[in-house]
Protein backbone atom coordinates (compact mmCIF):
# COMPACT_ATOMS: atom_id res chain seq x y z
CA UNK A 1 0.00 0.00 0.00
CA UNK A 2 1.29 3.48 -0.82
CA UNK A 3 1.69 6.35 1.61
CA UNK A 4 -1.13 8.18 -0.17
CA UNK A 5 -4.79 8.28 0.68
CA UNK A 6 -6.68 10.39 3.19
CA UNK A 7 -5.00 11.24 6.45
CA UNK A 8 -7.46 9.30 8.66
CA UNK A 9 -6.66 6.14 6.76
CA UNK A 10 -2.95 6.69 7.15
CA UNK A 11 -3.04 7.05 10.94
CA UNK A 12 -3.90 3.48 11.76
CA UNK A 13 -6.21 0.57 11.27
CA UNK A 14 -9.76 1.99 10.93
CA UNK A 15 -11.12 -0.51 13.42
CA UNK A 16 -14.53 1.10 13.99
CA UNK A 17 -15.05 1.20 10.25
CA UNK A 18 -14.08 -2.46 9.92
CA UNK A 19 -16.34 -3.54 12.76
CA UNK A 20 -19.27 -1.73 11.16
CA UNK A 21 -18.54 -3.24 7.75
CA UNK A 22 -18.29 -6.67 9.35
CA UNK A 23 -21.62 -6.21 11.11
CA UNK A 24 -23.29 -4.39 8.25
CA UNK A 25 -26.62 -6.21 8.53
CA UNK A 26 -27.03 -5.22 12.15
CA UNK A 27 -25.91 -1.66 11.45
CA UNK A 28 -28.21 -1.46 8.44
CA UNK A 29 -31.22 -2.38 10.54
CA UNK A 30 -30.20 0.11 13.19
CA UNK A 31 -29.71 2.87 10.66
CA UNK A 32 -33.20 2.17 9.35
CA UNK A 33 -34.60 2.22 12.91
CA UNK A 34 -32.93 5.53 13.73
CA UNK A 35 -33.85 6.79 10.26
CA UNK A 36 -37.55 6.21 10.85
CA UNK A 37 -37.37 8.05 14.15
CA UNK A 38 -35.62 10.91 12.35
CA UNK A 39 -38.32 10.96 9.65
CA UNK A 40 -40.93 11.16 12.38
CA UNK A 41 -39.15 14.09 13.99
CA UNK A 42 -38.65 15.85 10.67
CA UNK A 43 -42.35 15.53 9.89
CA UNK A 44 -43.30 16.94 13.27
CA UNK A 45 -40.88 19.83 12.91
CA UNK A 46 -42.01 20.46 9.34
CA UNK A 47 -45.60 20.56 10.55
CA UNK A 48 -44.63 22.96 13.29
CA UNK A 49 -42.70 25.15 10.85
CA UNK A 50 -45.47 24.85 8.29
CA UNK A 51 -47.94 26.41 10.68
CA UNK A 52 -45.87 29.60 10.68
CA UNK A 53 -45.92 29.89 6.90
CA UNK A 54 -49.19 28.32 5.91
CA UNK A 55 -51.53 28.56 8.91
CA UNK A 56 -50.60 32.02 10.06
CA UNK A 57 -49.84 33.30 6.58
CA UNK A 58 -53.12 35.13 6.08
CA UNK A 59 -53.05 36.99 9.41
CA UNK A 60 -49.32 37.72 9.24
CA UNK A 61 -49.54 38.88 5.62
CA UNK A 62 -52.18 41.61 6.04
CA UNK A 63 -50.90 44.96 4.69
CA UNK A 64 -52.65 46.63 7.64
CA UNK A 65 -51.17 48.55 10.57
CA UNK A 66 -53.68 47.52 13.22
CA UNK A 67 -56.42 45.04 14.08
CA UNK A 68 -59.44 46.11 16.06
CA UNK A 69 -61.36 43.31 17.81
CA UNK A 70 -63.95 42.92 20.50
CA UNK A 71 -62.78 43.43 24.05
CA UNK A 72 -60.91 40.38 25.41
CA UNK A 73 -60.26 38.98 21.95
CA UNK A 74 -56.54 38.48 21.48
CA UNK A 75 -56.17 36.43 18.31
CA UNK A 76 -57.80 35.49 15.05
CA UNK A 77 -58.23 31.73 15.11
CA UNK A 78 -59.66 31.09 18.57
CA UNK A 79 -62.12 33.86 19.22
CA UNK A 80 -65.71 34.93 18.65
CA UNK A 81 -65.16 38.63 18.16
CA UNK A 82 -68.22 40.71 17.19
CA UNK A 83 -68.29 44.46 16.64
CA UNK A 84 -70.93 46.90 15.48
CA UNK A 85 -70.21 47.71 11.83
CA UNK A 86 -70.65 51.42 12.53
CA UNK A 87 -67.45 51.44 14.57
CA UNK A 88 -65.62 51.50 11.23
CA UNK A 89 -67.07 54.95 10.51
CA UNK A 90 -65.94 56.23 13.90
CA UNK A 91 -62.41 54.94 13.36
CA UNK A 92 -62.18 56.53 9.90
CA UNK A 93 -62.32 59.92 11.63
CA UNK A 94 -59.18 59.17 13.70
CA UNK A 95 -56.29 61.35 12.45
CA UNK A 96 -53.79 59.35 10.36
CA UNK A 97 -56.28 56.62 9.41
CA UNK A 98 -56.55 56.13 5.64
CA UNK A 99 -58.57 52.92 5.44
CA UNK A 100 -60.75 50.71 7.63
CA UNK A 101 -61.82 47.35 6.26
CA UNK A 102 -64.21 44.96 8.06
CA UNK A 103 -63.94 41.17 8.25
CA UNK A 104 -66.92 39.05 9.31
CA UNK A 105 -65.95 35.60 10.47
CA UNK A 106 -68.29 32.62 10.32
CA UNK A 107 -67.69 28.94 10.93
CA UNK A 108 -70.00 27.04 8.68
CA UNK A 109 -70.55 24.14 6.32
CA UNK A 110 -69.22 24.20 2.79
CA UNK A 111 -70.64 21.68 0.30
CA UNK A 112 -68.37 20.72 -2.56
CA UNK A 113 -70.40 18.48 -4.85
CA UNK A 114 -71.75 15.70 -2.66
CA UNK A 115 -69.10 16.26 -0.01
CA UNK A 116 -69.65 18.40 3.04
CA UNK A 117 -66.90 20.00 5.06
CA UNK A 118 -66.63 22.91 7.45
CA UNK A 119 -64.51 26.01 7.08
CA UNK A 120 -63.91 29.39 8.59
CA UNK A 121 -65.68 31.61 6.07
CA UNK A 122 -64.51 35.21 6.05
CA UNK A 123 -66.73 37.94 4.69
CA UNK A 124 -64.45 40.63 3.27
CA UNK A 125 -64.88 43.96 1.49
CA UNK A 126 -64.21 43.12 -2.19
CA UNK A 127 -63.19 46.71 -2.88
CA UNK A 128 -60.44 46.79 -0.25
CA UNK A 129 -57.01 45.25 -0.68
CA UNK A 130 -56.55 44.99 3.12
CA UNK A 131 -58.50 41.75 3.65
CA UNK A 132 -57.87 40.02 0.32
CA UNK A 133 -55.98 36.72 0.61
CA UNK A 134 -53.00 35.79 -1.52
CA UNK A 135 -54.39 33.84 -4.45
CA UNK A 136 -52.41 31.17 -6.29
CA UNK A 137 -55.02 30.41 -8.92
CA UNK A 138 -58.01 32.36 -10.23
CA UNK A 139 -58.81 35.85 -8.99
CA UNK A 140 -58.70 37.72 -5.70
CA UNK A 141 -61.49 40.04 -6.88
CA UNK A 142 -64.75 38.77 -5.40
CA UNK A 143 -68.18 39.58 -6.79
CA UNK A 144 -71.41 38.80 -4.96
CA UNK A 145 -72.03 35.03 -4.98
CA UNK A 146 -68.37 34.18 -5.47
CA UNK A 147 -65.97 32.39 -3.18
CA UNK A 148 -62.21 31.94 -2.73
CA UNK A 149 -61.19 28.68 -1.09
CA UNK A 150 -58.03 27.53 0.61
CA UNK A 151 -56.05 25.53 -1.96
CA UNK A 152 -55.53 22.53 0.33
CA UNK A 153 -59.25 22.28 1.09
CA UNK A 154 -60.04 22.60 -2.61
CA UNK A 155 -57.50 19.92 -3.50
CA UNK A 156 -58.78 17.66 -0.76
CA UNK A 157 -62.31 17.75 -2.14
CA UNK A 158 -61.47 18.10 -5.81
CA UNK A 159 -62.93 21.58 -6.17
CA UNK A 160 -61.90 23.54 -9.30
CA UNK A 161 -62.22 27.15 -10.37
CA UNK A 162 -65.70 27.67 -11.79
CA UNK A 163 -67.29 24.93 -9.67
CA UNK A 164 -70.52 25.61 -7.86
CA UNK A 165 -70.34 25.25 -4.08
CA UNK A 166 -72.68 25.90 -1.21
CA UNK A 167 -71.85 27.69 2.00
CA UNK A 168 -74.43 27.26 4.74
CA UNK A 169 -76.77 26.07 1.99
CA UNK A 170 -76.34 29.16 -0.21
CA UNK A 171 -74.83 28.78 -3.70
CA UNK A 172 -71.40 30.26 -4.53
CA UNK A 173 -69.11 30.00 -7.51
CA UNK A 174 -65.46 29.16 -6.84
CA UNK A 175 -63.29 31.87 -8.41
CA UNK A 176 -59.94 31.62 -6.58
CA UNK A 177 -57.63 29.39 -4.56
CA UNK A 178 -55.68 30.96 -1.72
CA UNK A 179 -52.55 30.15 0.24
CA UNK A 180 -51.53 30.94 3.81
CA UNK A 181 -55.05 29.96 4.76
CA UNK A 182 -54.65 26.40 6.03
CA UNK A 183 -54.74 25.97 9.81
CA UNK A 184 -54.35 22.17 9.57
CA UNK A 185 -57.53 21.37 11.51
CA UNK A 186 -59.57 23.98 9.65
CA UNK A 187 -59.18 26.09 6.52
CA UNK A 188 -60.31 29.54 5.42
CA UNK A 189 -62.78 30.52 2.70
CA UNK A 190 -63.62 34.04 1.51
CA UNK A 191 -66.90 35.58 0.32
CA UNK A 192 -68.07 39.20 -0.02
CA UNK A 193 -69.02 40.61 3.37
CA UNK A 194 -72.58 41.40 2.23
CA UNK A 195 -73.09 37.72 1.46
CA UNK A 196 -71.61 36.79 4.83
CA UNK A 197 -74.01 39.12 6.59
CA UNK A 198 -76.91 37.46 4.79
CA UNK A 199 -75.69 34.04 5.90
CA UNK A 200 -75.37 35.29 9.45
CA UNK A 201 -78.72 37.09 9.44
CA UNK A 202 -77.34 40.28 11.00
CA UNK A 203 -76.47 43.23 8.82
CA UNK A 204 -74.68 45.71 11.06
CA UNK A 205 -71.93 43.46 12.30
CA UNK A 206 -68.21 42.72 11.78
CA UNK A 207 -65.68 40.51 13.60
CA UNK A 208 -62.50 42.48 13.05
CA UNK A 209 -61.57 45.80 11.53
CA UNK A 210 -58.33 46.12 9.64
CA UNK A 211 -56.91 49.64 9.84
CA UNK A 212 -54.30 51.22 7.63
CA UNK A 213 -52.59 54.49 8.55
CA UNK A 214 -50.91 57.09 6.41
CA UNK A 215 -47.17 57.02 5.88
CA UNK A 216 -46.66 60.00 8.18
CA UNK A 217 -48.15 58.29 11.22
CA UNK A 218 -46.06 55.83 13.21
CA UNK A 219 -47.79 52.49 13.83
CA UNK A 220 -47.59 52.81 17.62
CA UNK A 221 -49.03 56.30 17.47
CA UNK A 222 -51.90 55.05 15.36
CA UNK A 223 -52.60 52.19 17.77
CA UNK A 224 -52.60 54.61 20.71
CA UNK A 225 -55.07 56.88 18.95
CA UNK A 226 -57.38 53.98 18.13
CA UNK A 227 -57.29 52.60 21.66
CA UNK A 228 -60.12 53.88 23.81
CA UNK A 229 -61.71 55.63 20.88
CA UNK A 230 -64.53 53.09 20.97
CA UNK A 231 -65.59 51.34 24.16
CA UNK A 232 -65.23 47.53 24.43
CA UNK A 233 -62.65 47.16 21.71
CA UNK A 234 -59.14 45.76 21.69
CA UNK A 235 -56.55 47.31 19.35
CA UNK A 236 -53.40 45.47 18.26
CA UNK A 237 -50.49 46.48 16.09
CA UNK A 238 -50.41 44.11 13.09
CA UNK A 239 -47.26 42.18 14.15
CA UNK A 240 -48.56 41.76 17.71
CA UNK A 241 -51.85 40.32 16.50
CA UNK A 242 -50.04 38.03 14.06
CA UNK A 243 -47.76 36.80 16.85
CA UNK A 244 -50.73 36.22 19.18
CA UNK A 245 -52.41 34.16 16.50
CA UNK A 246 -49.27 32.17 15.91
CA UNK A 247 -49.04 31.37 19.62
CA UNK A 248 -52.61 30.08 19.55
CA UNK A 249 -52.00 27.97 16.46
CA UNK A 250 -48.80 26.48 17.77
CA UNK A 251 -49.83 26.34 21.40
CA UNK A 252 -52.31 23.56 20.77
CA UNK A 253 -49.94 21.71 18.50
CA UNK A 254 -46.70 22.01 20.45
CA UNK A 255 -47.37 19.63 23.38
CA UNK A 256 -48.60 16.92 21.02
CA UNK A 257 -45.67 17.30 18.66
CA UNK A 258 -43.18 17.49 21.51
CA UNK A 259 -44.56 14.32 23.10
CA UNK A 260 -44.39 12.36 19.87
CA UNK A 261 -40.91 13.72 19.14
CA UNK A 262 -39.64 12.68 22.56
CA UNK A 263 -41.16 9.22 22.11
CA UNK A 264 -39.44 8.98 18.73
CA UNK A 265 -36.17 9.96 20.37
CA UNK A 266 -36.57 7.35 23.07
CA UNK A 267 -37.28 4.67 20.47
CA UNK A 268 -34.21 5.71 18.48
CA UNK A 269 -32.08 5.68 21.62
CA UNK A 270 -33.30 2.21 22.53
CA UNK A 271 -32.58 0.90 19.06
CA UNK A 272 -29.10 2.39 19.14
CA UNK A 273 -28.28 1.14 22.63
CA UNK A 274 -29.54 -2.30 21.73
CA UNK A 275 -27.40 -2.36 18.59
CA UNK A 276 -24.20 -1.35 20.31
CA UNK A 277 -24.86 -3.56 23.31
CA UNK A 278 -25.49 -6.55 21.08
CA UNK A 279 -22.55 -5.72 18.83
CA UNK A 280 -20.25 -5.50 21.83
CA UNK A 281 -21.42 -8.75 23.37
CA UNK A 282 -21.00 -10.47 20.04
CA UNK A 283 -17.54 -8.96 19.63
CA UNK A 284 -16.75 -9.47 23.27
CA UNK A 285 -13.61 -11.40 22.34
CA UNK A 286 -12.32 -8.47 20.29
CA UNK A 287 -12.85 -6.02 23.15
CA UNK A 288 -11.18 -8.36 25.64
CA UNK A 289 -8.31 -8.71 23.19
CA UNK A 290 -7.95 -4.95 22.79
CA UNK A 291 -7.64 -4.67 26.54
CA UNK A 292 -5.13 -7.54 26.64
CA UNK A 293 -2.87 -6.02 24.00
CA UNK A 294 -2.96 -2.67 25.74
CA UNK A 295 -5.74 -0.47 24.37
CA UNK A 296 -6.34 2.43 26.76
CA UNK A 297 -9.83 3.21 28.05
CA UNK A 298 -9.90 6.33 25.90
CA UNK A 299 -9.32 4.27 22.78
CA UNK A 300 -12.17 1.91 23.63
CA UNK A 301 -14.46 4.86 24.38
CA UNK A 302 -13.63 6.46 21.04
CA UNK A 303 -14.14 3.13 19.28
CA UNK A 304 -17.64 2.73 20.66
CA UNK A 305 -18.52 6.39 20.21
CA UNK A 306 -17.38 6.21 16.60
CA UNK A 307 -19.70 3.26 15.96
CA UNK A 308 -22.54 5.04 17.71
CA UNK A 309 -22.06 8.26 15.77
CA UNK A 310 -21.70 6.36 12.50
CA UNK A 311 -25.04 4.63 13.11
CA UNK A 312 -26.62 7.97 13.99
CA UNK A 313 -25.11 9.74 10.99
CA UNK A 314 -26.40 6.97 8.75
CA UNK A 315 -29.79 7.22 10.43
CA UNK A 316 -29.98 10.98 9.91
CA UNK A 317 -28.99 10.65 6.26
CA UNK A 318 -31.56 7.89 5.80
CA UNK A 319 -34.16 9.99 7.62
CA UNK A 320 -33.56 13.17 5.64
CA UNK A 321 -33.65 11.32 2.31
CA UNK A 322 -36.80 9.49 3.37
CA UNK A 323 -38.37 12.79 4.40
CA UNK A 324 -37.45 14.44 1.09
CA UNK A 325 -38.98 11.48 -0.71
CA UNK A 326 -42.10 11.25 1.41
CA UNK A 327 -42.99 14.91 1.94
CA UNK A 328 -44.23 15.59 -1.65
CA UNK A 329 -46.30 12.41 -1.55
CA UNK A 330 -47.78 13.42 1.78
CA UNK A 331 -48.71 16.83 0.38
CA UNK A 332 -50.59 15.05 -2.41
CA UNK A 333 -52.36 12.57 -0.19
CA UNK A 334 -53.05 14.83 2.79
CA UNK A 335 -53.12 18.39 1.40
CA UNK A 336 -54.09 19.88 4.78
CA UNK A 337 -50.79 18.69 6.22
CA UNK A 338 -48.70 21.84 6.05
CA UNK A 339 -45.03 20.88 5.71
CA UNK A 340 -42.17 23.33 5.59
CA UNK A 341 -38.80 22.47 7.05
CA UNK A 342 -36.59 25.34 8.17
CA UNK A 343 -32.78 25.14 8.30
CA UNK A 344 -33.09 25.68 12.05
CA UNK A 345 -35.15 22.56 12.43
CA UNK A 346 -32.67 20.56 10.39
CA UNK A 347 -29.86 21.87 12.59
CA UNK A 348 -31.92 20.94 15.63
CA UNK A 349 -32.39 17.39 14.40
CA UNK A 350 -28.66 17.09 13.72
CA UNK A 351 -27.88 18.34 17.23
CA UNK A 352 -30.41 15.95 18.76
CA UNK A 353 -28.84 13.14 16.74
CA UNK A 354 -25.40 14.01 18.08
CA UNK A 355 -26.75 13.88 21.62
CA UNK A 356 -28.43 10.59 20.77
CA UNK A 357 -25.11 9.19 19.57
CA UNK A 358 -23.37 10.17 22.78
CA UNK A 359 -26.16 8.79 24.97
CA UNK A 360 -26.36 5.61 22.92
CA UNK A 361 -22.68 4.90 23.62
CA UNK A 362 -23.14 5.21 27.36
CA UNK A 363 -24.61 1.84 28.37
CA UNK A 364 -22.38 -0.10 25.93
CA UNK A 365 -19.34 1.68 27.39
CA UNK A 366 -20.30 0.58 30.87
CA UNK A 367 -20.64 -2.95 29.50
CA UNK A 368 -17.18 -2.87 27.95
CA UNK A 369 -15.76 -1.84 31.30
CA UNK A 370 -16.91 -5.24 32.60
CA UNK A 371 -15.14 -7.28 29.92
CA UNK A 372 -11.89 -8.67 31.30
CA UNK A 373 -8.87 -9.61 29.19
CA UNK A 374 -8.15 -12.68 31.36
CA UNK A 375 -11.30 -14.17 29.76
CA UNK A 376 -9.23 -14.85 26.67
CA UNK A 377 -7.26 -17.63 28.34
CA UNK A 378 -10.40 -19.71 28.60
CA UNK A 379 -10.24 -21.29 25.19
Amino acid at each position, binding site marked *: *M*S*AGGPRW*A*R*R*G*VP*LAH*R*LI*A*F*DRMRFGITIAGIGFAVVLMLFLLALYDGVRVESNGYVAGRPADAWVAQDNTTNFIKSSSFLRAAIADTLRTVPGVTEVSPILRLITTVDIGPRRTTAIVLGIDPASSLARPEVVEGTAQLQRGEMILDRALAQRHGARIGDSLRAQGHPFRLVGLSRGTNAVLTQLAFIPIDDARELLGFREVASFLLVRGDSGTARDTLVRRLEGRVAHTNVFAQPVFAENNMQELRGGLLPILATVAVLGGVVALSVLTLLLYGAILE*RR*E*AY*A*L*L*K*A*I*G*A*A*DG*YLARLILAQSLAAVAGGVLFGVLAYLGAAPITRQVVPEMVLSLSPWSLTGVAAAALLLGALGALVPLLRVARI*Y*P*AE*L*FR*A
Partner: protein
Amino acid sequence: MSEREMAVRLAHVTRVFGAVGETQVRAVDDVTLDLPRGGLTLLMGASGSGKTTLLSLIGGLIAPTAGSVVVEDMSLVGLGQPALTALRLRRIGIVFQAFHLIDALSVRENIELPMNLAGVERPESQARALQLAERFGLHDRLDFRPRALSGGEKQRVAIARALANDPAVILADEPTGSLDARAGDAVIALLHAEARQHRRAVIVASHDPRIAPFADQVVRLAFGRVDGIEVPLR
Protein backbone atom coordinates in the same frame (compact mmCIF):
# COMPACT_ATOMS: atom_id res chain seq x y z
CA MET B 1 22.68 -15.03 35.50
CA SER B 2 22.72 -11.54 37.00
CA GLU B 3 19.64 -9.79 38.31
CA ARG B 4 19.63 -7.41 35.36
CA GLU B 5 19.08 -10.32 33.01
CA MET B 6 15.81 -11.18 34.69
CA ALA B 7 12.78 -9.95 32.80
CA VAL B 8 10.27 -11.28 35.34
CA ARG B 9 10.74 -11.73 39.07
CA LEU B 10 8.08 -13.33 41.22
CA ALA B 11 8.44 -13.40 44.99
CA HIS B 12 6.02 -15.36 47.19
CA VAL B 13 3.18 -14.78 44.74
CA THR B 14 -0.18 -16.17 45.79
CA ARG B 15 -3.51 -15.84 44.04
CA VAL B 16 -6.68 -17.02 45.70
CA PHE B 17 -10.00 -17.26 43.84
CA GLY B 18 -13.40 -17.33 45.47
CA ALA B 19 -14.72 -16.55 48.91
CA VAL B 20 -13.43 -18.19 52.07
CA GLY B 21 -14.83 -21.70 52.34
CA GLU B 22 -15.08 -24.81 50.23
CA THR B 23 -15.14 -22.99 46.91
CA GLN B 24 -11.92 -21.11 47.62
CA VAL B 25 -9.00 -22.05 45.35
CA ARG B 26 -5.33 -21.18 45.82
CA ALA B 27 -4.62 -21.18 42.07
CA VAL B 28 -1.07 -19.92 42.64
CA ASP B 29 0.48 -20.61 46.02
CA ASP B 30 3.64 -18.87 47.23
CA VAL B 31 5.53 -18.95 43.94
CA THR B 32 9.03 -17.45 43.84
CA LEU B 33 10.61 -17.53 40.40
CA ASP B 34 13.00 -15.55 38.17
CA LEU B 35 12.55 -15.72 34.42
CA PRO B 36 15.51 -14.66 32.28
CA ARG B 37 15.68 -12.83 28.99
CA GLY B 38 16.97 -14.70 26.02
CA GLY B 39 15.40 -17.97 27.02
CA LEU B 40 12.20 -19.95 26.72
CA THR B 41 10.70 -20.98 30.04
CA LEU B 42 8.12 -23.73 29.96
CA LEU B 43 5.53 -23.80 32.73
CA MET B 44 4.43 -27.41 32.91
CA GLY B 45 1.78 -29.06 35.00
CA ALA B 46 -1.50 -30.83 34.93
CA SER B 47 -4.68 -29.02 34.07
CA GLY B 48 -5.64 -26.82 37.00
CA SER B 49 -2.10 -26.57 38.35
CA GLY B 50 -2.09 -22.76 37.99
CA LYS B 51 -0.21 -22.16 34.73
CA THR B 52 -2.72 -19.77 33.21
CA THR B 53 -3.17 -17.94 36.49
CA LEU B 54 0.57 -17.42 36.71
CA LEU B 55 0.70 -16.00 33.16
CA SER B 56 -2.22 -13.69 33.96
CA LEU B 57 -0.37 -12.43 37.02
CA ILE B 58 2.80 -11.71 35.01
CA GLY B 59 0.75 -9.92 32.36
CA GLY B 60 -0.99 -7.76 34.94
CA LEU B 61 -4.35 -9.11 33.80
CA ILE B 62 -5.16 -10.09 37.38
CA ALA B 63 -3.62 -8.94 40.64
CA PRO B 64 -1.90 -11.23 43.18
CA THR B 65 -3.53 -11.82 46.52
CA ALA B 66 -0.05 -11.66 48.08
CA GLY B 67 3.56 -11.39 46.96
CA SER B 68 5.29 -9.23 44.38
CA VAL B 69 5.42 -9.34 40.58
CA VAL B 70 8.20 -7.36 38.89
CA VAL B 71 8.32 -7.08 35.10
CA GLU B 72 11.23 -5.27 33.49
CA ASP B 73 12.15 -3.74 36.85
CA MET B 74 8.65 -2.39 37.34
CA SER B 75 6.62 -3.66 40.26
CA LEU B 76 3.07 -4.41 39.15
CA VAL B 77 1.67 -4.47 42.67
CA GLY B 78 -0.21 -1.25 43.25
CA LEU B 79 -0.06 -0.14 39.63
CA GLY B 80 -3.34 1.24 38.31
CA GLN B 81 -5.18 -0.19 35.33
CA PRO B 82 -3.92 2.49 32.89
CA ALA B 83 -0.27 1.86 33.86
CA LEU B 84 -0.71 -1.91 33.53
CA THR B 85 -2.35 -1.41 30.14
CA ALA B 86 0.52 0.77 28.98
CA LEU B 87 3.05 -1.78 30.23
CA ARG B 88 1.33 -4.58 28.31
CA LEU B 89 1.17 -2.46 25.19
CA ARG B 90 4.91 -1.76 25.06
CA ARG B 91 6.68 -4.51 27.03
CA ILE B 92 4.52 -7.66 27.00
CA GLY B 93 3.18 -9.71 24.10
CA ILE B 94 0.51 -12.34 24.74
CA VAL B 95 -0.29 -15.44 22.66
CA PHE B 96 -3.43 -17.48 23.35
CA GLN B 97 -4.43 -21.05 22.67
CA ALA B 98 -7.51 -19.80 20.76
CA PHE B 99 -5.52 -17.19 18.75
CA HIS B 100 -8.08 -14.41 19.32
CA LEU B 101 -7.45 -12.61 16.07
CA ILE B 102 -9.98 -9.90 15.23
CA ASP B 103 -11.96 -11.40 12.37
CA ALA B 104 -13.11 -8.02 11.05
CA LEU B 105 -9.49 -7.11 10.30
CA SER B 106 -7.08 -8.47 7.71
CA VAL B 107 -3.90 -10.26 8.74
CA ARG B 108 -1.91 -7.09 8.14
CA GLU B 109 -4.31 -5.01 10.22
CA ASN B 110 -4.27 -7.51 13.08
CA ILE B 111 -0.50 -7.22 13.22
CA GLU B 112 -0.61 -3.44 12.91
CA LEU B 113 -3.13 -2.86 15.65
CA PRO B 114 -0.78 -2.88 18.69
CA MET B 115 1.56 -0.51 16.87
CA ASN B 116 -1.28 1.92 16.12
CA LEU B 117 -2.35 1.73 19.76
CA ALA B 118 1.24 2.65 20.72
CA GLY B 119 1.14 5.68 18.43
CA VAL B 120 2.93 4.28 15.39
CA GLU B 121 1.10 5.64 12.38
CA ARG B 122 0.79 4.31 8.91
CA PRO B 123 2.69 3.65 6.75
CA GLU B 124 5.34 2.72 9.35
CA SER B 125 3.03 0.17 10.99
CA GLN B 126 2.27 -1.36 7.61
CA ALA B 127 5.94 -1.68 6.83
CA ARG B 128 6.71 -3.41 10.12
CA ALA B 129 3.68 -5.70 9.71
CA LEU B 130 5.06 -6.72 6.33
CA GLN B 131 8.48 -7.34 7.83
CA LEU B 132 7.03 -9.56 10.60
CA ALA B 133 4.83 -11.38 8.11
CA GLU B 134 7.85 -12.14 5.96
CA ARG B 135 9.74 -13.41 8.97
CA PHE B 136 6.89 -15.83 9.74
CA GLY B 137 6.13 -16.85 6.16
CA LEU B 138 2.85 -14.96 6.03
CA HIS B 139 3.65 -12.35 3.38
CA ASP B 140 1.20 -13.86 0.88
CA ARG B 141 -1.52 -13.93 3.54
CA LEU B 142 -1.41 -10.24 4.47
CA ASP B 143 -4.76 -9.31 2.95
CA PHE B 144 -6.54 -12.45 4.09
CA ARG B 145 -9.15 -12.50 6.80
CA PRO B 146 -8.24 -14.73 9.78
CA ARG B 147 -11.06 -17.15 9.00
CA ALA B 148 -9.33 -18.02 5.73
CA LEU B 149 -6.16 -19.17 7.53
CA SER B 150 -5.10 -22.57 8.87
CA GLY B 151 -4.59 -22.97 12.61
CA GLY B 152 -0.82 -22.80 12.27
CA GLU B 153 -1.07 -19.64 10.21
CA LYS B 154 -3.44 -18.06 12.70
CA GLN B 155 -1.03 -18.74 15.54
CA ARG B 156 1.86 -17.28 13.56
CA VAL B 157 -0.21 -14.12 12.95
CA ALA B 158 -0.94 -13.99 16.67
CA ILE B 159 2.78 -14.26 17.42
CA ALA B 160 3.56 -11.53 14.89
CA ARG B 161 0.96 -9.35 16.61
CA ALA B 162 2.49 -10.12 20.01
CA LEU B 163 5.89 -9.04 18.66
CA ALA B 164 4.66 -5.88 16.96
CA ASN B 165 5.87 -3.46 19.62
CA ASP B 166 9.11 -5.39 20.21
CA PRO B 167 8.24 -6.55 23.75
CA ALA B 168 10.72 -7.85 26.32
CA VAL B 169 8.34 -10.53 27.51
CA ILE B 170 6.17 -12.97 25.56
CA LEU B 171 3.48 -14.89 27.41
CA ALA B 172 2.04 -17.87 25.55
CA ASP B 173 -0.74 -19.99 27.03
CA GLU B 174 -1.01 -23.45 25.43
CA PRO B 175 0.11 -21.98 22.07
CA THR B 176 0.11 -25.43 20.47
CA GLY B 177 -3.12 -26.56 22.09
CA SER B 178 -5.23 -25.95 19.00
CA LEU B 179 -2.64 -27.09 16.46
CA ASP B 180 -1.54 -30.38 14.97
CA ALA B 181 1.92 -31.67 15.84
CA ARG B 182 3.72 -30.18 12.87
CA ALA B 183 2.21 -26.74 13.17
CA GLY B 184 2.77 -26.87 16.92
CA ASP B 185 6.45 -27.65 16.49
CA ALA B 186 6.82 -24.78 14.04
CA VAL B 187 5.21 -22.35 16.47
CA ILE B 188 7.42 -23.44 19.35
CA ALA B 189 10.51 -23.19 17.16
CA LEU B 190 9.48 -19.65 16.27
CA LEU B 191 9.02 -18.66 19.90
CA HIS B 192 12.34 -20.19 20.80
CA ALA B 193 14.09 -18.29 18.03
CA GLU B 194 12.48 -15.06 19.23
CA ALA B 195 13.81 -15.66 22.73
CA ARG B 196 17.33 -16.37 21.52
CA GLN B 197 17.73 -13.92 18.65
CA HIS B 198 15.95 -10.94 20.15
CA ARG B 199 16.73 -11.59 23.83
CA ARG B 200 13.16 -11.79 24.94
CA ALA B 201 11.85 -13.69 27.93
CA VAL B 202 9.44 -16.18 26.39
CA ILE B 203 7.19 -17.93 28.90
CA VAL B 204 5.10 -20.78 27.58
CA ALA B 205 2.46 -22.54 29.64
CA SER B 206 1.60 -26.04 28.45
CA HIS B 207 0.83 -29.52 29.62
CA ASP B 208 2.30 -30.87 26.35
CA PRO B 209 5.60 -32.71 27.11
CA ARG B 210 6.66 -32.47 23.45
CA ILE B 211 7.52 -28.82 24.00
CA ALA B 212 10.07 -29.59 26.73
CA PRO B 213 13.00 -30.15 24.33
CA PHE B 214 12.67 -26.55 23.09
CA ALA B 215 12.73 -25.06 26.59
CA ASP B 216 15.75 -23.50 28.25
CA GLN B 217 14.18 -24.24 31.61
CA VAL B 218 11.10 -26.18 32.64
CA VAL B 219 9.18 -25.08 35.71
CA ARG B 220 6.92 -27.83 37.05
CA LEU B 221 3.76 -26.65 38.75
CA ALA B 222 1.49 -28.75 40.94
CA PHE B 223 -1.45 -27.45 42.91
CA GLY B 224 -0.28 -23.88 42.37
CA ARG B 225 3.20 -24.52 43.73
CA VAL B 226 6.59 -24.85 42.06
CA ASP B 227 7.37 -28.55 42.14
CA GLY B 228 10.81 -28.35 40.55
CA ILE B 229 12.89 -26.54 37.94
CA GLU B 230 14.87 -28.45 35.31
CA VAL B 231 17.12 -27.63 32.42
CA PRO B 232 16.36 -30.17 29.72
CA LEU B 233 19.15 -31.98 27.94
CA ARG B 234 19.51 -31.42 24.24
